[in-house]
């Protein structure tokens, strides 16, 4: 069995549509913040793992190369990871592998994305689609979501009103988040009245385009116990990837994310969690769109399959609810610089440590779960963290 790995610090910065920093400058800010919070120095870092989802967003191929020094990785082993939107969590999983394997004791994990510099995010997203069967017919992100959301609503009877409640929750939660791009005081009617991108997804069901970075420092058990007497362990990791040929899969119903259920199960099995609904205290769930938070809650067993509508109706996932989800505001409220969705993991850590400021949930948080999702409805990565 692999040796234990702890999160010993996180590096945060404000998420904005457009940051005047370069990728290198964004990364330095969060790397420094993480070092200061964990009271480590640049020399303590043994290796760096980078993650960004789509280089065409910032228009620099292998963009991590600009930030070798800024990350604390000068003349050290570095590696870049990219698994579309799930990069947000698969990157810290890669960092985890570096430490759990025994190869390194202290690893810096950096996730980042710059989305404001390209001509139009949609033009960049279109490069993700298969060039022969899909891109020519002009699939775009709104329709990509519509295909999936319609199947989801149809399969389980989820409503637009329930989706709207997720937006109200997350944008409202972001009001307490000092790094948030789009905190908003909304009503359900505000969301329902916002223009359709593609049914059932409306403008206010959608997360924004964002520039931003995050850092996480991971340490082996021995080192972690020197740094803190309250280590937060990575208890379980899981990943699933499905076929790019979404129109011809064995499970062709986009409403049920088989690959996400698998990733969740892997992570929970590893963490020894049998009943997430009672054993998970807190979750930061990947919410590029309202219905995605709902699908991911189900896939991670935070509510019964098909039960995410009821979950939000009954207030389960509210900040003061029994199983709060995205008290930071999530991607919707804080911002969605795709690869840097690792912020979801950072907020799980802060909630456990009691350092979430105005976002802190009233209940005690010992165990939390988070996920990242992306590709052509393909990737899901899950991480469970917590105290002993």
């Amino acid at each position, binding site marked *: 069995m692999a040796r234990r790995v702890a999160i010993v610090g996180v590096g945060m910065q404000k998420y904005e549509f457009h940051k*005047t920093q370069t990728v290198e400058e964004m990364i330095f800010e969060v790397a420094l913040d993480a070092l200061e919070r964990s009271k480590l120095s640049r020399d303590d870092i043994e290796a760096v793992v980078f993650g960004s989802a789509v280089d065409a967003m910032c*228009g620099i191929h292998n963009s991590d190369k600009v930030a070798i020094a800024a990350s604390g990785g000068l003349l050290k082993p570095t590696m870049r990871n990219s698994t579309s939107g799930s990069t947000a969590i698969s990157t810290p999983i890669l960092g985890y592998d570096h430490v759990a394997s025994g190869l390194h004791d202290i690893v810096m994990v950096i996730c980042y994305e710059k989305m404001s510099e390209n001509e139009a995010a949609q033009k960049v997203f279109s490069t993700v689609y298969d*060039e*022969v069967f899909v891109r020519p017919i002009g699939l775009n992100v709104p329709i990509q979501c519509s295909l999936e959301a319609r199947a989801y609503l149809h399969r389980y009877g989820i409503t637009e009103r329930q989706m709207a409640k997720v937006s109200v929750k997350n944008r409202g939660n972001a009001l307490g988040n000092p790094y948030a791009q789009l905190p908003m005081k909304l009503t359900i009617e505000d969301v329902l009245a916002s223009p359709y*991108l593609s049914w059932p997804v409306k403008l206010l069901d959608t997360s924004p385009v964002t520039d931003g970075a995050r850092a996480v420092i991971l340490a082996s058990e021995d080192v972690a116990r020197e740094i803190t007497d309250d280590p937060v362990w990575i208890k379980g990791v899981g990943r699933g990837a499905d076929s790019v*040929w979404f129109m*011809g899969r064995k499970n062709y119903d986009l409403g049920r994310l088989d690959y996400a259920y698998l990733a969740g199960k892997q992570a929970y099995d590893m963490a020894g969690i049998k009943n997430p609904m009672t054993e998970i205290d807190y979750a930061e769930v990947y919410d590029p769109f309202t219905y995605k938070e709902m699908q991911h809650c189900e896939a991670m067993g935070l509510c019964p399959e098909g039960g995410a509508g009821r979950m939000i109706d009954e207030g389960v996932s509210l900040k003061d609810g029994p199983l709060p989800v995205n008290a930071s505001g999530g991607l919707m409220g804080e911002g969605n610089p795709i690869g840097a969705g690792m912020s979801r993991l950072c907020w799980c850590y802060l909630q456990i440590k009691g350092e979430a400021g105005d976002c802190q949930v009233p209940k005690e948080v010992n165990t939390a779960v988070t996920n990242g999702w992306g590709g052509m409805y393909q990737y899901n990565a899950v991480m469970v963290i917590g105290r002993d």
Partner: protein
Amino acid sequence: MAKKKQDLFTYDGQIQISYRWSVGQAGERFFAELRDHKRIMGARCRKCSRILVPPRTFCEECFVQEMEWVEVEPKGTLVTFGDSYFSTDGKRLKDPWMLGIVRLNGSDGGLIHYIGEARPEDLKIGMSMEVVFNEKREGNIFDIRYFRPAKK
């Protein structure tokens, strides 16, 4: 894209690279049959008998490359669909255009394509759809014009 401000230092540039992608060994057969015979071809795995559309040179379940080509009916079931009131260059349209995923009858796969001769309110998940071919075909995905609700 961020606006250009007077006191903001930026550098404008473009990346314009043309590509000539290979459609692949499976794609060549698929598009040749589409162009020459108005036929949709799937690849049947000799081991598990699943018929893959789009066809591939290997079976993803069995992980073997013993495939044989079979014709697939150009009719199927609407799995899901999506509409947009925006053209591909961002202009607002009066009438929406739609894409749908259709599971093709007698196969274990399907295709995504335009939906024509219907409005969003006419469509229901699970309804029967049929392929309308283009009369002028060139060996690409536009050899299919669109799916439409199957005529009885």
